[in-house]
């Protein structure tokens, strides 16, 4: 138990000292996961809106499939992307392996099902009367979807926060695509697993605390933005 207290002190020490390695890890982790969440949201919300709006054959199956992918292991996504962008893979020429860009792509793939699925759930939660009202007032398909998305923005925001949570806490993509390269692709989660294997348990827990605190700040920020309008 002592270690937990020591870890809190070490976490504070690292933050106060503005430890250069910590700053780099923080910048990279936030850059990758925030970018992935942003890109993921920009892709998922419209797709979710369209799946919600249109009735088509196999819709139920597609939604089931998307929901199944919520539980895809992060290592599997990492491995799948690794085989695609490795030198031997079809996209090897892009030289994305072991780069932050590659990691962003991996995290986008990881959180896409979750974002799309929760967007659909959020939209389903909006009363159908609003959809009908919008249509009866002469709104185009596009306008109707926008109206419903606006109506469901709080629930969609939760989905985005959840997506960010999955992105920043995952380790499978980060280690397989990033390679945990010191000073280049090392994120919080890969640093934690490395320090654990090195036996620096206190440092690992300290890093974990810092990661959680960052997530807390970001959640506050997102919630604040959401409450503003």
């Amino acid at each position, binding site marked *: 138990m002592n270690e937990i207290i020591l870890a809190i002190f070490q976490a504070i020490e690292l933050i106060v000292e503005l430890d250069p390695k910590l700053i780099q890890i923080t910048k990279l982790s936030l850059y990758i996961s925030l970018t992935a969440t942003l890109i993921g949201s920009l892709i998922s919300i419209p797709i979710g809106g369209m799946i919600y709006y249109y009735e088509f054959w196999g819709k139920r199956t597609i939604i089931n499939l998307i929901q199944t992918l919520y539980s895809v292991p992060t290592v599997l996504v990492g491995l799948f992307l690794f085989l695609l962008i490795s030198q031997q893979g079809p996209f090897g020429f892009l030289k994305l392996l072991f*780069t932050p860009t590659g990691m962003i792509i991996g995290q986008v793939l990881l959180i896409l099902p979750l974002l799309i699925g929760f967007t659909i759930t959020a939209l389903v939660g909006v009363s159908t009367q609003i959809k009908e009202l919008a249509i009866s007032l002469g709104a185009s398909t596009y306008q109707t979807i926008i109206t419903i998305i606006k109506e469901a923005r709080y629930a969609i925001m939760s989905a985005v926060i959840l997506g960010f949570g999955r992105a920043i806490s995952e380790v499978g993509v980060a280690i397989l695509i990033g390679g945990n390269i*010191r000073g280049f692709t090392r994120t919080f989660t890969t640093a934690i697993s490395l320090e654990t294997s090195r036996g620096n348990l206190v440092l690992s827990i300290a890093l974990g605390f810092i990661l959680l605190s960052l997530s807390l700040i970001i*959640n506050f920020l997102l919630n*604040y933005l959401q409450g503003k309008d």
Partner: protein
Amino acid sequence: MFKYTFLTKILFYMEKSMRKAFFILMVLLSVFLATGCTDTEQQPDTTTITEPDTTTTAQSETSKLIVSTTTSLEDTGLLEEIEAAFEDKYPGVDVLVISGGTGIAIQYGERGDADILLTHDKSREEEFVNNGFGTNRTEIAYNYFWIVGPENDPAGINGLNATEAFTRIMEEGQNDSDQVKFASRGDDSGTHAREKKIWESTGVSYGEINSSGEWYIESGRGMGETLLLSNEQNAYTLTDSGTFLAYTNEGRIQIVPIVTAGDELLNVYAAMPVNPEKHPNVNYEGAQNFVDFLVSSEGQEIIGNFGREQYGEPLFTPISEGLPS
């Protein structure tokens, strides 16, 4: 229109001063984020420079050298020191170290994702070179694998050689798996490969060992986790001396080295540049320079001194001192 979510509700009830602090924190964070993003956005520039055709023509530009290595070289901190010295000498090269077990490290080489391998599994390394994936194999340093275990040595292996010790552990373990256990990496790493080799030398096949009872525990993890496991379970295990010393130094484990010498435990590290004929994209020139640096007097001195300060003894013996005969 203003709906409160749970968190904004909390925010609302916060004292005014606290709210002020919160806003300052947010401003700081956004500034931090902005700088963070611009910093990292520069990275694509360096990556575009390393397109295969430009590496050879643009000497003054940065080129990446991806070193795929085993955990014992990176986790001990040796490669960090070598990297710093190498980059001082070749400012145009950015060394990127990826560490994993020897198994995955060799995979990266075979697929052309790494430019050079630094590993410690002679038979697989020779296979790698013979199959044309690597140009050659240069030995750079060595140390010993150690058989470590509980201080009271329940199987009584003190003074035995590695094969005898393993035989004894197996016999005692099958007798009484509460007292005598063996923890294996079980992850196809170089250390695991050596463990298998020693088991085979006892005359029992590894498959039999693997399924011969509760005394044999497979961790499926890295050296550090396996050491923690054997410490917890009072088990014997085979470890590289570097990782073991790092763990003892931290006071993390109480198990002790018991068998520490002999040919069977010799652990040689070698460097292999990935063959550009097989993978034209690799940074062969950088890899060659890296090998040359490792065996140069400067590189060998770094290897020979590494760990002296922290652990009281060097973790590796440079190859220039010659292999023990």
